[in-house]
């Protein structure tokens, strides 16, 4: 069974451009999460989907970030326009239920120059 997969693995963009990250959760997992680790800091929660609904988006830093999960399958995280401080590693995770083990993807390393 495939794990959580994320695309792309690396992205380098210029300040002001738009980037879209994609996450495919483990099949059958209704719960999908986005996290990020900016340089030198801890891994922080961004938001949580249950199927296609946003259950908790309290960690989204500002309105330049938009997450979607059409049809309750894969999810995208768009950053528009990107700023230098958005650089870091963006992780996606999924779990079967809200309080069960979460499995993480390999992350997308975003560099904004």
């Amino acid at each position, binding site marked *: 069974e495939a794990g959580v997969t994320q695309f792309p693995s690396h992205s380098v963009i210029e300040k002001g451009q738009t980037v879209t990250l994609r996450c495919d959760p483990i099949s059958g997992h209704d*719960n999908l*999460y986005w*996290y990020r680790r900016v340089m030198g800091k*801890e*891994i*922080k*929660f961004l938001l*949580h989907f249950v199927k296609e609904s946003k*259950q*908790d988006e309290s*960690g989204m830093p500002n309105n330049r970030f938009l997450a979607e999960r059409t049809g309750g399958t894969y999810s995208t995280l768009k950053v528009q326009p990107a700023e230098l401080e958005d650089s870091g*590693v963006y*992780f996606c*995770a999924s779990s079967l*239920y*809200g*309080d*069960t*083990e*979460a*499995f*993480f993807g*390999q*992350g997308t*390393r975003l560099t904004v120059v």
Partner: protein
Amino acid sequence: GIQVEQSPPDLILQEGANSTLRCNFSDSVNNLQWFHQNPWGQLINLFYIPSGTKQNGRLSATTVATERYSLLYISSSQTTDSGVYFCAVGLMNYGGATNKLIFGTGTLLAVQP
């Protein structure tokens, strides 16, 4: 909000040595996970351990939820054990179903041959 503290922050071992990593948390949680971030940045699930003791090969973990700490034991360490070890706790919310993990700052382990 809840605080998750890991100790020690850094650890250097000789191959074959044993070690204990600690995770303290400041509030009640209903799940706890240990991860190993390998040199390629992937977060590898080690244990899902809200309470009790589990073992997997050379690794074992114990969580004492009532005293708000968890321990990760690594025995007969190998160079491939190098990387960052994260503890993450799940918050009780939404009627008992957690919806996000709060990560500690990690322990950077270097195992020397």
